[in-house]
């Protein structure tokens, strides 16, 4: 078999598993499970970036892959784990809106994302151009997850998952962003994450829970 054909097939497989993980995140109730899924998502992202780097021979993408591994597979899930242990919310479960409905909306979003990606794919010259639709779908699904969740920690996981989708979209459309921007985003992510971690404690202090529905009380009438 032709190697580039082989690479494309593996890439498509990885992209499909990303989408699968996104759907899985949409349906999980427990925070603990979500973190595991987030780490898996990062790992798949790492693998696909590595593959793209190998096939395109771009050295910068190796750095990107390494950064992904360090930040999204190891550092962030580890910090999140510690955080929920400290907060004692690892087995928190959420009452979700209605999982089948959410899934159906998610399906609609995936179709929309593919429709949206078509013109971009036609213009792109990368070997990964077929996966742009999936990347957009991952972004949408993460957003949908943020909308349907109520706990502060899961919001943050949704936010991080959305960033994963963006990163994947960048890799598949143009072989990643310039290194400087990528480093900048990685730093932003880390710092934003720290700030959110501090907010968790503040929110808990204020409301005795991390349920964001308490924040409705902040509205002035």
């Amino acid at each position, binding site marked *: 078999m032709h190697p580039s054909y082989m690479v494309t097939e593996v890439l498509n497989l990885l992209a499909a598993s990303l989408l699968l993980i996104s759907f899985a995140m949409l349906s999980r109730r427990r925070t603990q499970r979500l973190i595991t899924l987030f780490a898996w998502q990062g790992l798949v992202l790492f693998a696909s970036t590595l593959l793209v780097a190998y096939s395109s021979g771009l050295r910068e993408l190796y750095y990107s892959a390494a950064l992904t591994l360090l930040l999204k597979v190891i550092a962030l899930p580890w910090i999140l784990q510690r955080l929920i242990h400290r907060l004692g919310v690892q087995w928190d479960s959420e009452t979700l809106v209605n999982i089948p409905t959410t899934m159906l909306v998610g399906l609609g979003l995936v179709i*929309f994302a593919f429709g949206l990606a078509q013109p971009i794919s036609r213009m792109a010259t990368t070997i990964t151009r077929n996966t742009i639709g999936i990347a957009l779908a991952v972004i949408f699904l993460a957003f949908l997850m943020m909308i349907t969740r109520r706990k502060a920690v899961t*919001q943050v996981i949704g936010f991080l998952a959305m960033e994963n989708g963006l990163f994947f979209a960048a890799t598949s459309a143009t072989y990643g962003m310039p290194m400087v921007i990528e480093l900048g985003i990685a730093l932003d992510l880390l710092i934003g994450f720290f700030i959110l971690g501090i907010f968790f404690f503040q929110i808990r202090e204020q409301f005795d829970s991390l349920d964001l529905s308490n924040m409705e009380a902040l509205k002035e009438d």
Partner: protein
Amino acid sequence: MMTGMTSAVAIHDLHFLLWLAAAWIALGFMGMLRPHTTRFIAHLLFPLGAILCLGVALLAGIFLATGHAPQMVILPLGLPNLPFHARLDTLTGFFLLLLGLAGAGISIFAAGYFRHGQGTPPGLLCLQYHVFLASMALVILADDAYFFMVAWETMALSSYFLVTSQHRIAEIRRAGFLYLLMAHVGALCILLSFGVLQGGRWQFTFDAMRGASLPPFWASAAFLLALLGFGAKAGLVPLHVWLPEAHPAAPSPVSAMMSGLMLSTAVYGMLRISFDLLHIRYWWWGVLVLGVGLFSALFGAIFATVQTDMKRLLAYSSIENIGVIFTGIGLAILFDASHLPLFAALALSAALIHSLNHSIFKSLLFLATGSVLHATNQRSLGKLGGLIRSMPWVATLALVGTLAIAGLPPLNGFVSEWLLLQSFLYTPQIPHAFLNMLIPLGAAVLALTAALAAYVMVKFYGVIFLGQHREPSLVNAHDADWLERIGLAWLALGCIAIGVMPQLALRAAGTVTGALLGQTVNLGSPFWWLAPIAPKQASYNGLLLLAGIVAVVSITFVVVRVLAHGRMRRTVPWDCGYPWQTSRMQDTAEGFGQPIRHIFGSFFGMERELPSPTDVAPRYRIHIEDRIWGVLYLPIARGVQRLADWVGLLQSGRLPIYLLYSFLTLIALLVFVL
């Protein structure tokens, strides 16, 4: 700037003026060096600022007296490709003269006034004060829309901070906000007016605007926007609502500056746009301005009669005077559109001289209220009275201003009102039959206004300075200190000088009308005589009148002194048989205004609290409101509130909903791209 100085000697007046404005700003920043040392600021910086004012007045006066050729300069300031342009012509010169003359008196008074320290540290006040002065000078000197708007906004902001210098009082913060709001609405209109005036060529220098011959529709649009914008700053009804709130809230020298000088910059702007930048004037513009002016004048005078706060009274009187000035402008536009340049020049001269007069006597009166306020801590007329005995200096100097603003000869207020009434006499020559019938009514309104203004001033002076002390603490009221006296005396001198030698003011105004209308009123008559159209029509000699008054008074004095007993006798006045009398039994401010309140009752929104006959501690209270609030402003406020409530529905307070908003926006935008 330096290159211009060397290349052409003729334009050095403008450079000096710009440097003086820069020096004001520098003085302001020097105040920040030692912001809490009142001696340094009051006894050094404010008098220096007053000297700079005199410098401005002197330069402007020399310019008006000698060369009338406009001078222009491009400043090395502003944005790239959009430098500041400045220009000195006769209109600029006239208003700088006004600024300098009145500003000198106010600054020297402020040196004594701010010594006591107000809410804001004196150094900060010094900065705001001098930036305010400089920005007013720059508004007048600006020669492109960009520079004008920068200076205009600087003026609004610095005066806002001055108004709210005692910002710990909630009422003052509220007044300041209202002022800022109206100032910005006005500035927006002016900006739009300039946008129309550039006529699609995107050149924002005034020179380019002069060249843009706008079609009638757009010319009218620019004029109306300018009228709204400058009207809001000048306090024309119905855009006057900020004025009676902001003027009393500010410290007195600031009230004087705002009323005397800042309102004049609005008059300047109106004249600049309607007579200089617009190439044509339509008769109905004149009718509109005339109507608004007359209504403002009458409205201001009527409301002034019923005020019980001395600074609010003066603020309403400012509305009246601005109304009179705009009446003159309206007549000038009307005459000019009817191709009667001589009468247009007469009306415009009246408006200009009235601006000058107003800046002088209104500053004088506001400063006098400042001295009274410092001496007594009272602003309410109901708690003053009899101050002529404890404050003879302030009382005497305020009397000059009071007589001047009441329009009595031989003081300056008479001159401009006389000129304005003169120009009303020539309106039958306007070729519009309807207007010929209506405008005499305007003259009657103006005469009524003048009479009411005199009534207001009798009330103002009588209640504050005459009669008995209404509060026992007033016995200890101290007179103004020497710096304050100098400031008051300078302005009082101005009232007398212009009243006695109106020919000087008319000549200065003549240079302006000559440049704007190509016509001046008759200036060739003998120096002491004022005969604007022709000596046989009407003439006035202030000096002769003054001599007559002095002669009559001194003869009477001598006759009484020599022929009658010649001794002064102090005795209790006849008490109508009452067993005892208190100072509470004299006529009050409310009582004095009552007849007017009765006659013009439909003007006011009144709320009265009448005590019942059996009340042991009866209290009479009356609250008078502007009807304009209910008619115009409250509906707007309610509409905005309702709109805000609708927008508020979006804000549910639930985080997922907010996320949904951004998600839907994202989807919608993507669909749009698709």
